């Protein structure tokens, strides 16, 4: 099932589009479904779209939860 791993917004190459970083993998996602996203923000991504913007504490807490479960998102994934 789809894990809600927070992805960090790296850049906004064009309107309504962001490049996000998820465990060292960079992906382009659409921003059409979220408002006011800036580089450095964390978003939850699902098949090509950013779904939700997280506040930094929430993102930190969620990343910690995943790390506890053995998914270290800061380290590049296999």
């Amino acid at each position, binding site marked *: *099932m*789809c*894990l*809600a*791993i927070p992805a960090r917004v790296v850049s906004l190459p064009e309107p309504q589009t962001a490049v996000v970083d*998820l*465990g060292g*993998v960079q992906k382009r996602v*659409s921003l*059409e*479904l979220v408002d006011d996203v800036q580089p450095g923000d964390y978003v*939850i*991504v*699902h*098949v090509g*779209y950013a*779904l*939700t913007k997280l506040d930094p504490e929430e993102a930190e807490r*969620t990343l910690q*939860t*995943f790390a*506890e*479960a*053995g*998914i270290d998102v800061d380290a590049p*994934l*296999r």
Partner: protein
Amino acid sequence: MSLPGELTVRLAWDGRRVVRVDVESTRPLIAGRLVAGKPAAEAALMLPRLYSICGHAQNAAARSALDAAAGLAPAPQALAARATAVVLETIHEYLWRLLIDWPRAMGRSPVVAAVAAVRQRITPALQGLAGGDDSIAPALVAALEALADEHVYGEPVDAWLNRADAAAFDGWIAAGTTLPALLQRELMATAPQLGRSATMLMPAATAALLQQAVVPSLRGDPSFARAPYWQGMTAETGALARTRSWPLVAALADRDGHTVATRMAARLAELALLLRQARRPFGGDGDPRWVEAFALGRDEGLAAVQTARGLLLHRARLDDGRVADYQVVAPTEWNFHPAGPLVQGLEGAEAPDAAVLERHARLAVQALDPCVACNIEVGHA
């Protein structure tokens, strides 16, 4: 490189037809590891945070399984709130599938603005339900219905639900006034038999049936959560399984089989039924059971939630108020089972070239709606 939780569907193609289908998954089963040893209340808060697209269904499942394990009977309002959130989330997911994913899979422009409008309205309502509301505002339901009338059905939901046989549905397709009607028309014209499988449709997951068909293997077979079966057989879960008795869906399944087109039609029918059901409060005696939960014994509980993608199971076992054992079985595990409906539906599929095959496979995947991203690889046999 693949991220955790992706599916890869590999098709061996001999230049004419598919001779072999393999499904590989990198989904980590992390729930059990994560909540082991945690107090039940803490586990109930952690579990829904792990999942991005069905968080409310996961919340309903986690709370219901943990309540049942602890021998607690939640208040009727809490149960109504859980069921309402699950239904609202399903409506949202269906609009997303029909207006964004399906057009994209068929090379057409999605109607993203309509889905964005739905999200803007549904998100606060879902937060309200998580925060103590037990119902949703009639204005929200009316707005969702108006949106579906305009973008999905091209007519009022009730009028569409009156289309009870294949001819009435064909009339709707032929008129083709909305994007889903147009896509359905293209699908029927180009690949009417695509994805056809003979996999059993999962029966309604009542407590009594679950006890008999699922619980023994869920408890005893460690591989069950990755490759589940229903009384020893693979099963298809989701909209088609749930709406099989609805006259239109039954007629289409009878005429065309369990194809991509029939699955899309079932999704259209269930969305209309949900919008109609949402006009009044949930939890009446005759309502379908979106959230089912019961104790399996002392300190052990099972929850079965009907999500947009199908049956979601959570099983919890507690020891002195802490989680001793926790299992989650997602609907994707049934539909993308190595011998399940996706694999069956693509085996033997004919395609003139690899590009067409890849597009067809994408549609077959889309019709069964995995909860994770799915890669498709075509190789020569």
